[in-house]
C-alpha cells in the first residue's frame, strides 16, 4: 500500500516537473521581452524626479562584423555597413539599450512632439530601436533610390504583422491602417526582405517612461513622480533583467543615478 502511494507520488511529481519544464519553454520567450505595468493613468506630474545613467558592455567586445552587401551597391554600398546588434563605443558604452520603468501606474503624458519615424537610408534602418506609444502611428521614411519592404513581425497579442512595399518613389509612408498596435508589446523585429541584412526593433509601449541609450550609452527618464520603481532594461544581444530588476527610489525633484553593466546573452 505504502509503495503504491509512493509510486503515485513519484508519478505526480514527474508530471509536475514535466509541466514545469513545458511551461518554462514558454516563459523563455517572454524573458526576452519588456515588462509592462497593468494599467497606466496620465496625471500632471509636480516635482518629478530624474533617473539617468550609462549602460556599459562587460566582457570582451566581439570584433565588428562587416555586412556583406549583396545588391543595390550604388545605394547600399556607398559606405561600409556593420552588424549593429551590438554597438559598443569608447569606454565600452552600449548603444540601443532600452531602459524603462516596469511598474509605473501613473505619470506624465507622451511627448506629442516626439517623432515616430524610422528612416531607410543607405539600406539601413535609423534608428535601430524605436519606441512607439500604443495606438500611435509609425511613419516610415525612404531616403533611398531603392525599393524596400517594411516587414514588422506579427506577435501573439497584436495582429500587426505588417509587410508593405515602399518603393523608391515613396519618401514617406504612415502605417496608419495596419501598423497601429492595440496592446503594449515588444520589442518586435523589423526587417527588409529585399535587403536581408536590414534590422530594427519596435517597442509598443503604454507609458512614456522608456529611453533608448545613445552613442555614449546614456539614458534619461524625466518627470518621474516620486516613489519606488523597478528599473528594467532590454538589449537585443544582451537580453533583459526581468528576473532581477533594479529597485530605485525617486524623491521629489531628486535625481537617481543608475548605471548598468550588460553581458552577452548566453547562447541557447
Amino acid at each position, binding site marked *: 500500500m505504502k509503495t503504491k502511494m509512493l509510486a503515485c507520488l513519484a508519478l505526480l511529481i514527474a508530471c509536475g516537473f514535466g509541466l514545469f519544464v513545458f511551461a518554462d519553454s514558454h516563459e523563455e520567450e517572454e524573458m526576452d521581452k519588456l515588462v509592462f505595468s497593468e494599467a497606466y493613468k496620465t496625471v500632471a506630474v509636480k516635482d518629478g524626479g530624474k533617473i539617468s545613467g550609462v549602460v556599459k558592455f562587460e566582457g570582451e567586445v566581439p570584433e565588428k562584423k562587416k555586412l556583406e552587401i*549583396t*545588391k543595390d551597391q550604388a545605394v547600399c554600398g556607398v559606405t561600409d555597413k556593420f552588424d549593429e546588434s551590438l554597438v559598443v563605443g569608447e569606454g565600452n558604452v552600449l548603444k540601443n539599450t532600452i531602459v524603462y520603468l516596469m511598474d509605473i501606474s501613473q505619470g506624465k503624458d507622451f511627448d506629442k512632439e516626439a517623432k515616430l519615424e524610422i528612416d531607410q537610408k543607405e539600406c539601413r534602418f535609423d534608428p535601430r530601436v524605436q519606441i512607439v506609444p500604443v495606438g500611435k*502611428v509609425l511613419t516610415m521614411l525612404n531616403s533611398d533610390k531603392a*525599393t524596400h*519592404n*517594411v*516587414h514588422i*513581425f*506579427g*506577435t*501573439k*497579442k497584436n*495582429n*500587426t*504583422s*505588417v*509587410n*508593405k*512595399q*515602399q*518603393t*523608391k*518613389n*515613396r*519618401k*514617406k*509612408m*504612415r502605417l*496608419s*491602417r*495596419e*501598423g497601429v498596435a492595440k496592446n503594449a508589446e515588444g520589442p518586435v*523585429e523589423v526587417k527588409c*526582405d*529585399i*535587403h*536581408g*541584412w536590414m534590422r530594427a526593433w519596435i517597442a509598443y509601449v503604454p507609458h512614456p517612461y522608456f529611453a533608448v541609450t545613445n552613442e555614449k550609452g546614456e539614458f534619461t527618464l524625466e518627470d518621474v513622480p516620486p516613489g519606488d520603481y523597478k528599473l528594467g532594461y532590454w538589449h537585443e544581444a544582451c537580453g533583459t533583467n526581468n528576473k532581477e530588476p533594479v529597485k530605485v527610489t525617486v524623491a521629489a525633484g531628486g535625481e537617481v543615478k543608475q548605471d548598468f553593466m550588460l553581458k552577452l546573452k548566453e547562447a541557447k
Partner: protein
Amino acid sequence: MRSRNIVLAALILGLLSVFNLTFAQDAPEVSEKGKEVYEESCAHCHGIEGRGDGSAAENLLPQPRDFTRGLYKIRSTESGQLPTDQDLFDIITEGMPGSSMPGWETSLGTNDRWEVVAYIKTFYEGFKEQETPPRQISLEGKIPYSEESVEIGKILYTQFACFECHGNLGRGDGTSAPTLEDEWGFKSWPANLTQSWNYRGGNDIDDIYKRFIGGIAGSAMPMFEDPAFGLTIEESKRYNELDSKAEMTETEEEEYNQLDEKMGNAYEILDLMADGDATEEQKQIYDTAMKEFNVKSWHLANYVKSLSPEKRPEAAIGKNVLRSQYTINELPEMADAAWETLESSYFPLVGQIIVEPRQFNPTIDSVNVKSFYNDTEVAFLFTWDDRTHNTEVEEDEDTGTTFEDAIAIQFPVKVPKGPTAPKPYFLWGGKLPVYLWQWKASAADKITELTAKGINNAEVQEVQGNIEAKGEYTDGQYRLWVKRALKTDDKKDLQLEPAVFVPIAFSAWDGANGDVGTKRVISSWYSFVLEPVPSSRRFIYPPLVALLSFGLLVGLREFVRQRNT
C-alpha cells in the same frame, strides 16, 4: 432613474449582440468534434497546441503553420487582416500545392472540415476579438486576359520590383532570394512563377491578384503598393524613362518635376486617407489613383499568369516519351535554333527519401529534355530551374552551408531486352550496374562517366570517353548540352542504336537547398528512343497500294456493269 439606466444598458447590450450576430462567420461553434478531428488529422504537423511544432514538423519546409499568431498566408482579405472562415475551409479542402499540406476533400467530410476551422481559430485570441469582419480584397475592375494586357503587365513587373525576389523571368531567382526567411526564421523561397502548379494558393488570375494585393502573411512577400501612385501607366513609363537618364534637358526636367510632384501629392493623400483627414478634392484624386492602381494590378496578374503553362506538363511517358530526332546533318550546337523546333519531354523530380540523408523539401521541380541524333552521334539538351547558381561549398553563419549544384543522367550499362526484362535498381543501380553522366556547376563543360552499383557505390570510370558538354546558367535556369558517339569501345558504356527503348533516369542537386550526396532530387526510370529513320520505301508502297486498289475497284465496276448488261 435607476431602472431607466438598466433598460438603457440592456438595450445597448442587445444592440451589441445583434451587431455581433450580423458579423456571422461560416464556421460552427467550437466543439469536441473539431478538437478530435484536429488532433487526429492535423496535430502531427501543426502540434497539439497549434504552434506548428508537431512531431513531423521538423522535416518539413515550408514549415507547418503556427496558428498562435493568426498569420495566414492564403487569404481573400487585405494585408494585416485575418482570413475569413471560408479561406480556412478552402485551404483545408484544397491543400497547398508545392508544400506538404494535402487537400482533405476526400479524407475529411464537409462537416468535419468546418469543425476544424472553428477549432484552429481558438489558437489565436484575435479571432474572438474581431469586431467587424475582415476587409476583403475587392476584385472589381478585373481586366480580361489578353496579349495586350500581358505586354503592359510585363513592364509593370519591373516597376513593381517583383524581380528583386522572383527574378527577371520569374523563376524565383531574384537577387534577394537567397536570404529570404519567414517570421519564424525558416528559409523561404520566392515562388518560381513559371511553375504555377506549385503556387500555394492556386493559379487563377484572381488568386494571383489576391496574393500581391494582400501579401502572404508571415512570409517575405509584402503587400504591394503602386510604385507610381497617382500616375497613369503611360505617365509612370515616362517617369521611369526620365529618371534613368543621365542628363535631362530643361523641358524634360520640368516634365519630370511635374510628374514627381503629382506622385508625391498622391502618396501624401494616401496617408491622409488612412488617417481619415482627406478633403473632398483629395478623395477624388485618391479614387482616380486607386482605380489606376487596380488596373495596373490586373495587368500584372495577367502577366504573371502568362509565365507558366496552365497545368503541370505531362510526364515523359506514353505519347510524351522522349524521342531523339534523326538528322542527316551535323548535330546542332547548344545555341542552335534547331532546338527550338523540338518539343521538350518533361521529367518530374521528387525528393530522395529512401536512403539517409534524405531530401524532404525538394526545390528542383523537373528536368526538360530534347534530343537529336545522326548516324554516328547523339546530342541532348537538358534544362532545369534552380533559383541560385552555386559552384562551390560555402559556409555562411546566417544561411547555413550551401553546396555545389549538379545533375547526373543515368542509363543502364546494358539495355534490357524487351519491356519485361529487369532494369537496374532505379537508385543508381544494384546487382545490375548503371552508367552515369555526372555534371557539376564548377566544371560547366565537363561530363564525368561513372559506373554505379548503388547510391553509395559509384566509381569514376577509368577510361573517360570523348563526351562533349557545355553548361550555362542564366535567369534561374541551367542548360546543359551533351554530345556522345552512339557506339564506344568501352564495355562499361551504354551502346545506342535506333528504335530501341533505353531506360533513362535523373538525379539533381540544388546546393542552396542543402543537396549533397544522397540528399537530392531523383526520378524513377523513364525511357527514350532514337526515333527510327523514316524509310524511303514510304514513297513507293503506299502509292502502289492505292493504285492497285483503285485498279481493282475500276475492274470490279466494269465486271458488274458487264454482267448487268
